[in-house]
């Protein structure tokens, strides 16, 4: 094998690899953009806003930690498509959320509504705050009591004396 051939081979291989990568990544990137990106046309900016808000507020029931905006799952794609179609048909955000809740349950809402079975969920931060406040108040009160005590008690005095003497 001549030196020139040995040089030419990697260069050709690199070029081939580059083309391969380009040919492979470009359609893949476009596919992702199509799947995740927003669909074509909206009649108005308000519709686009509604769509963008809703897909960030609905949960993908397959991949339960994700909104349908983030999720790659087929079902999330179906749900985005339905949100888009219903928005285009002039349905309100509330109607679309109700549609999803009727089929997949309250769980599809990333922002749970305030209702009987979610009261504890909504109230728990405030309950924790109250509990923390109570503990804090206790500590402060005890420290204040201690600071306000002017002198040692007779027992404490005796204890100090003992300590001094043992030195």
């Amino acid at each position, binding site marked *: 094998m001549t030196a020139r051939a040995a040089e030419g081979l990697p260069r050709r291989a690199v070029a081939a690899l580059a083309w391969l990568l380009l040919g492979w990544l470009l359609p893949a990137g476009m596919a992702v953009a199509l799947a995740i990106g927003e669909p074509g046309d909206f009649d108005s900016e308000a519709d686009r806003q509604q769509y963008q808000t809703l897909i960030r507020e609905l949960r993908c*029931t*397959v991949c*339960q930690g994700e909104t349908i905006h983030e999720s790659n799952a*087929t*079902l999330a794609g*179906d*749900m985005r498509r*339905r949100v888009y179609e219903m928005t285009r048909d002039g349905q309100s955000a509330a109607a679309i959320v109700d549609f999803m*809740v*009727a*089929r*997949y*349950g*309250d*769980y599809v809402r990333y922002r749970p509504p305030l209702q009987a079975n979610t009261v504890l969920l909504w109230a728990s931060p405030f309950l924790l705050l109250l509990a923390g406040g109570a503990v804090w108040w206790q500590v402060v009160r005890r420290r204040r009591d201690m600071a306000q005590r002017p002198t040692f008690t007779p027992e404490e005095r005796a204890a100090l004396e003992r300590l001094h003497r043992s030195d």
Partner: protein
Amino acid sequence: MKWRSLIPLVAVLALLGVLLVGLNLNSRELPSPLVGKPAPAFTLTALEDPERILTEKDFTGEVALVNVWATWCSTCRAEKPLLMELAKAGIPIHAINYRDEREVALRYLEISDDPYRTIAFDPKGDAGMEWGVYATPETYLLDADGVIRYKRTGPLSRELIRDVVLPLIDKLRTAQREAAS
């Protein structure tokens, strides 16, 4: 002063209790809002005949199961022998073939068992959305009026069939007979 030293112990035990309950909950299983509601409407073609239109009415009239399946769903394949047993026991099973290809699904049924009485072909998952499908296989139990009485997300098991599905079918059939007489 003594009871105060017990507070951390009680708190830790309470936390462990909560975690233990949490461990036993299956977070993937979501309660279906469709139980107690009529079978959702759809208009699809029959799997074996693109000319034949099926609607939810084709699923109702008697106590029946509706199974959502696909050839790409391996759990559905694993579940099918149980469905065969149910079908042989005289329980009508209808199906929604979900996000599948017609030829593939037909060929699959040709070379394996077919427990289904009616199969609606739903390549785009439109009926799937109406029925709140999110993880195949899913199985619904309809009463004679076409109201969903039970829904299972995921495969049926022998235990589930014995303990839940069959008793419920018996109950619904008795109710149907009593209503008819």
